[in-house]
């Protein structure tokens, strides 16, 4: 069996900010490879640079130096239009604070990426339903986010991230705003998604105990550097 190319490859990636006269090295010379289909947990204390690294993989930010290669595409060489297309088609994102649009129903929230990707209207309803069924919320399709529990909101956000059938799912503290039981159920869901349909997941978290139970591998960051790169279990 031939080995699949890695889903994500980071080569000496740095992201520096200028804060007044001092340089903040949020990500400092990080090299990391995430094989296709892996569930990687990016651990670290707050301010360690893990979220910045995730934003670089998500194509929301550009590295100061080094290159981010995802699904064979070098993000640092992309135009902003190409990066937008990459965010639409290749990656899905889940946030700590869910980031659902409050005045839209679940259906409309999940439909949003399909609108941006100019998917045919006739196809959209089925795709939205499929995504909501995947997270078990098909019955709440007409509800607004404020009518849902935190866990349900995060599930909706996951459905929204999945609806364009991306190859990589990026989650930034997905359980950060949830109680531990709900957090566990969300991670169970992510695990299921990783196994079926088979997806590469990079999850930023500082809850190492939960991560240990669900992620396939850990990478620990501190002060912008990759401290350890745990082997797959």
């Amino acid at each position, binding site marked *: 069996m031939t080995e699949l190319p890695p889903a994500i490859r980071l080569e000496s990636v740095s992201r520096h900010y200028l804060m007044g006269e001092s340089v903040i090295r949020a990500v400092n010379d990080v090299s990391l490879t995430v094989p296709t289909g892996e569930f990687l947990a990016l651990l670290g204390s707050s301010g360690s640079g893990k979220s910045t690294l995730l934003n670089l993989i998500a194509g*929301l930010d550009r590295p100061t130096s080094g290159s981010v290669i995802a699904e064979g595409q070098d993000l640092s060489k992309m135009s902003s239009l190409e990066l937008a297309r990459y965010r*639409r088609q290749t990656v899905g994102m889940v946030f700590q604070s869910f*980031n659902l*649009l409050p005045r839209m129903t679940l259906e409309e929230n999940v439909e949003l990426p399909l609108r*941006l990707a100019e998917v045919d209207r006739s196809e959209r309803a089925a795709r939205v339903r499929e995504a909501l069924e995947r997270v078990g919320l098909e019955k709440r399709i007409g509800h607004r986010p404020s009518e849902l529990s935190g866990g349900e909101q995060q599930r909706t956000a996951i459905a929204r991230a999945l609806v364009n059938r991306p190859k990589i799912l990026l989650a930034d503290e997905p359980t950060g705003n949830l109680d531990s039981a709900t957090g566990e159920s969300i991670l169970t869901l992510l695990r299921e998604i990783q196994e079926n349909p088979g997806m590469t997941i990079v999850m930023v978290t500082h809850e190492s105990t939960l991560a240990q139970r669900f992620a396939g591998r850990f990478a620990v960051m501190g002060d912008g550097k990759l401290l350890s790169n745990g082997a797959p279990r």
Partner: protein
Amino acid sequence: MKFRDLSDLAFRNLREGVLRNSLTTLGVAVGVASLVAMLSLGVGLQQLASSRLAKSGLFDSIFVTPKTNLRRPGGGPPATRTPDARARPLDADARAEISHLPNVIEVYPQIRFFTEVRYEGKPFATMVAGMPESSKSSGAFDGMQGSFYSSPNADETILQAEFAKELNPQTASLIGKDLILRYAERQSLAAQPGEESSGGFSVVPKDMHLRIIGVVETEPASGFGGFGSGRLLIPLPLAETLRAAQVNDLRDILRDSSSDKPTYSSLTVRVKSPALVEATEARLKDLGFSAFSLLDASKSLRIFFSVFDLLLGIFGSLALAVATLGIINTLVMAILERRREIGVLKALGAADRDVKELFFVEAGVMGFFGGMLGTLLGWLIGRSLTLGTNLYLHRQNLPGVDISSVPWWLVLFGIGFAVLVSLAAGLYPALRAARLDPVQALRYE
């Protein structure tokens, strides 16, 4: 993003901040209303002036005289001038030929003569003018009391109100009454034996009974080329059969060789529209006649109103400029409020262009509705001004006028201009929203 999705989202966003967006839209509407009201006033006054002038027949008429008739300053006595090879008499043949020129509606001589009118035994001196049939439809008799001539040869007269008041201050009671027209008929004399020239004519007083059928306030017979306004108006064909002695007969007698053949000292040629005057005038000159028109006057009228409209437009635009600031303010506030949403959209794959277009469409929609509402308001303001003016005129016993007009082009202009201005106002906020850093925007609480 497809336009339908874009407008869906834009409408949703506008509905979300319904109070603020409605107020902004209302601001645009007030701006457009002031612009449309000002311009409708300009257009209305221009139409009023044009129609008044059109009724006078000044701008679609060409005044034709025979070339030999001209006495240019310094031209010397007729005998010393070399006759123009193309010069020809302005006779019945010429009249027929001119009437067959393209775009010519009618050709008629100016017939005006002094008369003494006897009404209820009392004499009144005035001027008679022959009215061509077309004057009925030209609007020159709009608002008259009574009716127009029953036939082109009817022994009927319409009196100009000023003269009618001399006969009887209660002008309405004149209608249906008879008056006697005393005029000087020109009778040709046979040529004296041995004389080359014609025998001239004698002038014989004649009486004619005319029935008064109408009284008109306007002055339909004040056209140029006359000798003063006609106060007693009779049908032109009737006037022609009278062979009344006219002021220029004395001049004609020296020139005419055969006075029985009808020749005219001048003809008035009416064309379909003022725009055709210039070309027809040139044709008439080619035919060997002298021709002139008051086209230049109509041109300067148009220039005057263009400048007038421009000034009104500038004043009207001031309110729209304020409204523009309102749109910019609303959209910039919306960016602050929707910072996080913009971040989410970008994280989900919205390109800068999508965000820019979203704000652009929102501005355009506010402009469109503001434009529609504003045009309606502007029209209402124009109508109210007309109403107020007419109330005032009515009190002064003057006929009402339409001082404002909102033609279709002004409606389209009002809406189009509002959309354009709103899009321009949306430009800065849209660019600012598009340039928002998604990482920063997502962090924004």
